[in-house]
């Protein structure tokens, strides 16, 4: 009986380990290529440790590819501002829907839920025409403003604020804080775990978005990293050393965020899974 348990355990570990290898290999292979000179990559071979270790690929993409630093800046700028706006606006909306009484509240809530179900492709073409009319094509606001609220996270924040202790707000009111003071100085700081989970997902969706910047940004200097990387790939199709270095620079911020906020991540996910 005991040895049978051990065999079962061994088998489970074998499954887990082989899948972990399958998951990791593409990343390690890409990371390794980012430190190899081009001739070593083109010569083939399956060596994970570079024979001739070099930082040149990274140096080149930052110094000689004039647009790469710009794409990195565009991505960071759009993702950071977009996330900040989402955190404030989604929370305000969630709070109002959870706590305040006003006419039309139910209709609004149902509308927000219904909007969750509409695929983005439907709004893609009209939004292009609207942004064109506003003169916002090829601009940061064209990418940020349409995405500055998110129905999923308004819903999530509403659920959070419904369970939020009322006594805290009442105490703040007694101390003389108004509605806005209470919200920004007392309620928001106490909502940090929910905000952290939201921040990660919103940041990632801005950071990884390919379609919106592809449609909105016509000038190469306004590309964000995903579109830039794609353009880079078609221009420098054989320079896999540069493409892999650029891919690694692109992945690093998300990786850092993931490692730091791992626990919020899983909480945020199970939030969604519970629905």
């Amino acid at each position, binding site marked *: 009986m005991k040895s049978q348990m051990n065999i079962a*355990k061994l088998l*489970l570990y074998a*499954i*887990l380990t082989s*899948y*972990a290898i399958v*998951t*990791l290999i593409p*990343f390690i*292979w890409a990371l390794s290529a980012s430190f190899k000179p081009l001739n070593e990559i083109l010569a083939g071979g*399956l060596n994970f440790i570079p024979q001739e270790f070099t930082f040149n690929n990274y140096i080149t993409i930052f110094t000689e590819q004039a647009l790469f630093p710009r794409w990195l800046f565009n991505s960071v700028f759009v993702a950071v501002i977009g996330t900040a706006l989402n955190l404030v*606006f989604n929370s*305000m*909306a969630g709070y*109002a*829907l959870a706590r*305040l*009484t*006003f006419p039309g*509240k139910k209709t*609004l809530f149902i*509308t*927000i839920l219904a909007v969750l*179900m*509409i*695929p*983005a*492709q*439907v*709004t*893609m*073409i*009209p*939004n*292009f025409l*609207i942004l064109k009319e506003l003169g916002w094509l090829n601009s940061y606001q064209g990418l940020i403003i*349409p995405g*500055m*609220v998110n129905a999923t996270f*308004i819903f999530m924040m509403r659920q959070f604020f419904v369970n939020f202790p009322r006594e805290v707000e009442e105490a703040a009111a007694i101390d003389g804080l108004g509605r806005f003071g209470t919200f920004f100085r007392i309620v928001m700081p106490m909502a940090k775990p929910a905000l952290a989970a939201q921040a990660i997902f919103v940041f990632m969706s801005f950071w*990884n978005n*390919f*379609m919106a910047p592809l*449609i909105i940004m016509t000038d190469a200097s306004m590309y964000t990293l*995903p579109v830039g*990387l*794609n353009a880079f*790939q*078609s221009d420098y199709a054989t320079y896999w050393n540069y*493409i*892999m270095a650029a*891919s690694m620079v692109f*992945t690093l911020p*998300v990786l850092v965020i*993931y490692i730091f906020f791992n626990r919020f*991540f899983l909480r945020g*996910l*199970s939030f969604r*899974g*519970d629905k």
Partner: protein
Amino acid sequence: MAKRKYTKSQLREAGQGYVFLSPTILTLLVFLIGPIIFALFLAFTRVQLLGDTSFTFVGFDNFTRMVDDTRALIALRNTAFYVVVVVPVQTILALVLAATLNAGLKGEKFFRIIYFLPTLTSSAVLVMIFMWMYRPDGFINSILGGVGLPTYNWINDPNIALISIMIMNIWATAPFFMVIYLAALQDIPDSLYEAADLDGANAVQKFWHVTVPLLRPVTGFAVIMGIIGTFQLFDQSYMFSGGSGGPDNSTLTVVLLIYQYAFAAYDQMGYAASLAVALAIVILAATLIQRKLQKDEEVY
């Protein structure tokens, strides 16, 4: 109908409610609800983008045109094939991985962190890495050739290109659903497994008769999310084919076709909008049917 009188504090609270919601209402109106209505209008028009944008009403022409549009039919066939293969495979893989991870082994957290990496990584980066590994003399063919298996022209063979994208996406998405399954697995009370033990069930029987039925609601969620996601396949087929949907239309998806008509041609935007509306109807219908089925067989 009696006119309701509001007290001063009620009025103030209502005002505050609208102030709190004003950014949301504004964005919803301008960039979501407005565009949805606009899209329905566009679907029945011919849009001319050169010079001044003009709209001509054409009735159902855009919709009848779909029937004779060979590329639309190819895109639909590719997308349907993609959905039918990817959704079940990624869901089953996610369930098996989650069940394995939940067996109470050491290092569970470590594996979970590793598995989740592809889900975090941008589709653009994943496509770059895979396009490079898929080269004729690349990593994957070297491995396959090394152990005596057949090699393929992963990106340029019309029979294989879509399958290459499937492999990559299953690899990237299954762990996302695994995490959702994992959360649900941890909520299943041990007593149910102990009862099955008393009945003499082995591990496979317990998985099949206890775990799988209890996870049905989560499976429903994973299938809906999977269908919605796979129907919208765009980034990967765009990047793999340089925007063309090639080789030989083999990676052309519905969304890529919508993109091509809307942004690569100057007078096809109305037709593109009608395709987008049709796609949305298909996705909504799939979601509703799935929900209905799920309600009918709810175990609780």
